[in-house]
């Protein structure tokens, strides 16, 4: 009797773990509670979902129930927003422990965080704030990434920021800074193409030059999003990384270029404010998927030709 019971109990435990859905070559969308019922009723959905880690750091309740339902059926990417990796002060160990617990619980396909900071002393500012790019900040940020990766026991994808100001004390470019972080920590990269376009416009450089300098080989995920337009003190265009509308045409074009070079990388459409009905957000992801699929076919036929 016992011989039969024990394996069954062991199997039941194994069944508690989530299925290993592959995220390769997929487009996805940010997971929003207002879309949950539509997603669960939508049997044509095949992309992945990205959850903002902090929204699921409560002890229990409906948020965890929803994420577990989604994680059962789809690949999930876990996106940390407020680790404050780019800040001068030590990481919040309590927050890092919560982050690890969430990763252990949901076994996400991808884990990412930002090259930015949001906490200073004890105040949480709820924004992704910029940092100077110097040898000193490089060492500090690399230490923070090492610390996160040691605790969660896997590499993270680090996202390039959108910025509005510069630090005259910076001694290297953002792409240099990012490349050196990759070399020192072994982290991967989350290339946010909207952030590239926003920052390039705001700082008066070319988005293509930035991408040419970016370590494309280390990209594990791409973000696309909408932005808003304002003016700076000189009356010139200042783009705001607002995530409140559809992806801009210029960003789609840059996306095609990146995918043409890198192949089909998991790509997320972010829409965090003025959130539309599910079919509208889904249509953005379907558009991204079409580009990924086209380049996947080009790659496949290229390989077939090479074999022949």
């Amino acid at each position, binding site marked *: 009797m016992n011989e039969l019971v024990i394996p069954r109990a062991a199997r039941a435990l194994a069944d508690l773990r989530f299925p290993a859905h592959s995220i390769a070559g997929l487009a996805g969308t940010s997971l929003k509670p207002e879309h949950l019922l539509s997603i669960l009723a939508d049997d044509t959905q095949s992309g992945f979902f990205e959850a903002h880690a*902090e*929204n699921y*750091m*409560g*002890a*229990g*309740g*409906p*948020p*965890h*129930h929803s994420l577990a339902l989604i994680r059962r059926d789809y690949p999930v990417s876990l996106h940390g*927003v*407020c680790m*404050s990796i780019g*800040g*001068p*002060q030590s990481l*919040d160990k309590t*927050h890092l422990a919560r982050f690890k617990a969430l990763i252990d619980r949901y076994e996400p396909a991808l884990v990412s965080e930002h090259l930015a*900071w*949001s*906490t*200073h002393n*004890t*105040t*949480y*500012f*709820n*924004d992704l*704030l*910029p*940092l*100077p790019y110097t040898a000193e*900040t490089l060492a500090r940020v690399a230490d923070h990434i090492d610390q996160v990766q040691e605790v969660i026991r896997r590499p993270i994808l680090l996202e390039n920021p959108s910025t*509005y*100001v*510069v*630090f*005259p*004390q910076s001694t290297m470019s953002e792409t240099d800074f990012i490349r050196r972080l990759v070399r020192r920590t072994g982290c991967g990269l989350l290339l946010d193409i909207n952030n590239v376009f926003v920052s390039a416009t*705001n*700082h*008066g450089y070319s988005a293509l030059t930035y991408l040419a300098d970016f370590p494309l080989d280390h990209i594990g995920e791409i973000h696309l999003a909408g932005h808003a337009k*304002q*003016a*700076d*003190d*000189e009356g010139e265009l*200042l783009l*705001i990384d607002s995530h409140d509308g559809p992806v801009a045409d210029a960003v789609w074009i840059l996306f095609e270029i990146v995918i043409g070079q890198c192949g089909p990388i998991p790509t997320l459409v972010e829409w965090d404010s003025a959130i539309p009905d599910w079919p509208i957000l889904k249509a953005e992801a379907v558009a991204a998927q079409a580009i990924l699929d086209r380049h996947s076919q080009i790659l496949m036929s290229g390989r077939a030709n090479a074999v022949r």
Partner: protein
Amino acid sequence: MQSVDRQIHFLGNRRSYASDFTPALLDPERPLPSVVSGPNGKAAGKRYNVYRNNVTVSLINALAATFPATQRITGVDFFRAMARFHVRATPPTSPLLFEYGHEFPTFIERYEYAQAMPWLGDVARIERAWLDAYHAADETPLSPQGLSSIPPERLAESILTTHPATRIVCSGFPAISIFAANRKDNPVSQIEASEPEDALITRPGFEVVVRHLPLGGAVFLSHLIAGKTLGSAASAAFEENSQFDLPASIAGMIESGAFTSVTQGE
């Protein structure tokens, strides 16, 4: 030599780009931080204001999301002005925004322009408790069978374990009626209630439930939550109000899912 180096390092940490960048974020009177500029000699004023705006507006939005009935009562403009004062005076200290706003109800009670709505702070207290219950740990509530397993003669000495979602809000105003009428999108009809209302907030499953406690009910449950025995909680409730209905309160306590288990007395 080493100690000098360490001291310099320490001072360097205290005065960092973050300590220069942050003071003006929540204070529009302060000058721009000296560490930033626009690119190619451009000004940084409107550029830095993007961060000021992101911080302030997103935190006001966080309060609006936690306190929707309060916002509906005051109107959006009044609420956002009130929330802006609170965000600037008491910004969050945790990156978990669903934890923000525990001090907001007390702020509302002292807020000069809200003095005509003395019940508004209690409505906000119910909303804050609602969100606590929403994110609380999942636990199975105590069943009627669980309670009836205790021999009647031992019941008075029993102690209950509180469910993680359980909260009590006592109000000198009809705060639950006002909360309930404004929490939904339906038009608000005349609120007839005028008596004080004590609220019990629980989440036995995935739905948060707000109940109106009968007379003496809040004292009864507060004693149980504090770890007092069922007998002493009942005595305290009778002392508070001679009309306290013990059987109905025990039934309500089970039905609401306010507790998870019962331990029989020695």
